[in-house]
């Protein structure tokens, strides 16, 4: 096992950069913590994106297959906004975080009015229509933005070495294990996702707009009878759902890069999350996102990334067999 204090890494090591002792791998504790941190970043982005998917399904009963492309568009727009706005990375990033979701949300609302409304929100036909939308958005991005992966400079990014406690000879001791670190931006992503999801929850439960959305979700016909402009609500919900995906894209793009194919994996994971959590249930979505994100982080670290995907897919199958409404979903009406 590792000796405490042998490899402090907040400052450059005196006398060479090598780890001095002959421990085989990282210790289990720090290793697990690193895995959980990585998982938490994935979970945060996933929760944000999947709650958009879940909201759209909950209110409109539309399975939006193009959701991953809105995530991709968010990342691409973030690249576009940050490259055309000067004034330092922080200002450019704030501009991107405001503009990208608005633009993508607007585009989605337009797609709702032009396409989904014309199909009367028929479940089968909207699936086909959103598949079409997926390809249109992806290919349009390829034709305009191109096939390259492009980076966005994070507003801030510091490496933070994390301490670990170990029971040593002199009692409890702090030390900085080799490789146990994260960045301030990754922590920011986790924090931002928590705040945004709390805000979404407040919006849905406390605001008038949220009340109207929930009323439409509960019974569209009755809502119409009470004078709620259901079609406009639908357009708004589709826009907000896409906006959430775009926001997730903006948050992730300083860690990864914007690429026209990035929506595919994200869509698959979002569906897994939404099915496990219960389509239309915000709380279920969050719980499932944390579950899937963390297990993906931990399983891929300790075993293999492929096993993590296998287990997630298996979980979906089990949920569909034994609890089709999802962990938190209510009984279908």
């Amino acid at each position: 096992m590792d000796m405490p204090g042998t490899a402090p890494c907040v400052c450059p090591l005196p006398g060479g950069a090598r780890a001095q002792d002959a421990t085989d791998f990282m210790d289990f504790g720090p290793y697990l913590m690193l895995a959980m941190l990585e998982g938490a970043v994935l979970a945060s982005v996933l929760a944000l994106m999947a709650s958009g998917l879940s909201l759209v399904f909950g209110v409109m009963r539309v399975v939006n297959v193009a959701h991953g492309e809105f995530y991709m568009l968010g990342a691409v727009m973030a690249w576009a906004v940050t490259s055309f706005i000067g004034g330092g990375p922080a200002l450019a990033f704030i501009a991107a975080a405001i503009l990208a979701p608005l633009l993508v949300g607007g585009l989605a609302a337009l797609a709702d009015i032009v396409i989904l409304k014309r199909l009367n929100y028929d479940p089968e036909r909207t699936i086909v229509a959103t598949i079409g939308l997926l390809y249109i958005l992806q290919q349009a991005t390829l034709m305009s933005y191109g096939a390259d992966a492009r980076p966005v400079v994070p507003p801030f990014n510091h490496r933070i070495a994390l301490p670990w406690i170990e029971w040593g000879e002199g009692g409890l001791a702090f030390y900085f294990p080799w490789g146990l670190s994260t960045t301030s931006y990754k922590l920011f992503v986790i924090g931002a996702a928590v705040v945004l999801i709390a805000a979404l929850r407040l919006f849905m439960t406390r605001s008038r707009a949220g009340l109207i959305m929930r009323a439409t979700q509960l019974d569209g016909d009755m809502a119409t009878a009470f004078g709620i402009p259901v079609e406009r609500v639908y357009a708004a919900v589709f826009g907000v759902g896409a906006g959430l995906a775009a926001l997730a894209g903006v948050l992730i793009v300083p860690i990864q890069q914007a690429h026209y194919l990035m929506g595919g994996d994200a869509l698959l994971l979002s569906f897994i999350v939404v099915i496990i959590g219960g389509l239309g249930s915000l709380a279920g979505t969050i719980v499932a996102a944390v579950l899937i994100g963390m297990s993906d982080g931990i399983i891929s670290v300790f075993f293999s990334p492929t096993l993590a995907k296998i287990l997630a897919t298996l979980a979906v199958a089990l949920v569909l067999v034994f609890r089709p409404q999802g962990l938190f979903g209510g009984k279908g009406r």
Partner: protein
Amino acid sequence: MTKLILPAGEGAKLHSPGRRKALKTLAAGVGAAATMPLLGRYASAQSTAPIRIGFQKHATGIGAAYGRWYERATLAAVEKINGEGGINGRPVEIVTEDDGTDPKRGAEVLEKFANQSNCDIAYGTLFSHVVMGSAPRAGELKLPYFVVSEGHHVASGALNRWTLQPGITDVKSQVQAMAPFIGDVLGKKVTMIFPDYAFGYDHRDNLPAAIAAAGGEVIEQIAIPPSETSYTKYFPRIPRETEVIYHVMIGPGVLTFVKELGEFFGPSRPEIFGFVDSIEATDLTSPGLEFLDGTYFWEGMPRYAQEDDTEFSTAYRAAVGCDENGASLADPKDVATYAHMYGCWETLHIIKAGMEACDYKGIEDRQALIEAVEAMSDMPEGFDHPQGPKRFNGKTHQTFGQQYISKVEGGKLVKVHTAAIDDTIYPDEVDYTSMSF
């Protein structure tokens, strides 16, 4: 719309004569098609008809950056060749098709070259899975297929007589030539990180023996799926006793990979040796890459202009439109795949030399072209071979050439070591010339 739909009976009646007519047309078409090879032969025998080279391009998909620069190098080489009078007095024409960096599409593209766009030969492409997917089809079509892929699949004997790699060295050579430097200069205990598919396996399978020969040991091999977007979770598997990290990564995630590698180690990193693939087409001054300063890279051809560059190397740099940082003259942010694309330039010159040696007239001379290239051996350094001299092995269809090691200093790659051709030679694993056409 509905007006056009006829009742079933009426429609059937209307269609019967039409169908007969269609059959006749079809028969005439088949007849015409049967004479096509003959016509094609006459057409291509005319001395002014262009030689058509089908270029399989990674225009989309994960290889897009390579595709863009392979095309630029290709067009620059063709401009030079045509400016010097073409091949056998005929101009060269490039027919570009997107393979989507996808093996299935790659094979379809070859078919299109052979059957639709009347190409004399096929050429191009980097990603090894596309080459693996396409080469069998080239063999069936009897279409000469010149690849610029650097995979060991050609020399390993996995492919066929119609597939050659005369313009770029393969991974086995590269690994073998790098190992002595790694073992002698950087450290004995090596952990390698590589992509989890064919190209990565060339590294996985060849490095341990090469490092052992240099007195070192590969203590851990970490494979990363090619579609991965987040890398930190793999790094805890790096053993702490590691003295050298050997990394090679490819695809749209490369910048994330090197950034996260830097964030993982912070200031206490081991020595790092990478294949430039990990940062190919990536600006070395990108934020987060500062930690690469003082690390080493293999380069097929130095991206940054060096003090001892030959006149050929400098002329080539200008011809492909690159500045002294290896970026586009038009856009300094558009960094080239400089370590690989010289292979396109050199391969096209070898195709020219081969076609001239066999007095290539048309597709009936495809076999003669293969035999002419198989007969080649040493190629001197020059404007046709700006990366350095080459030694082609006709039996294994693979070329051997110098390799370079560069060190990152002040955000630039500075050449510190040149491995000789002899360092890259390994025993033959196949004799394609004994195979039938």
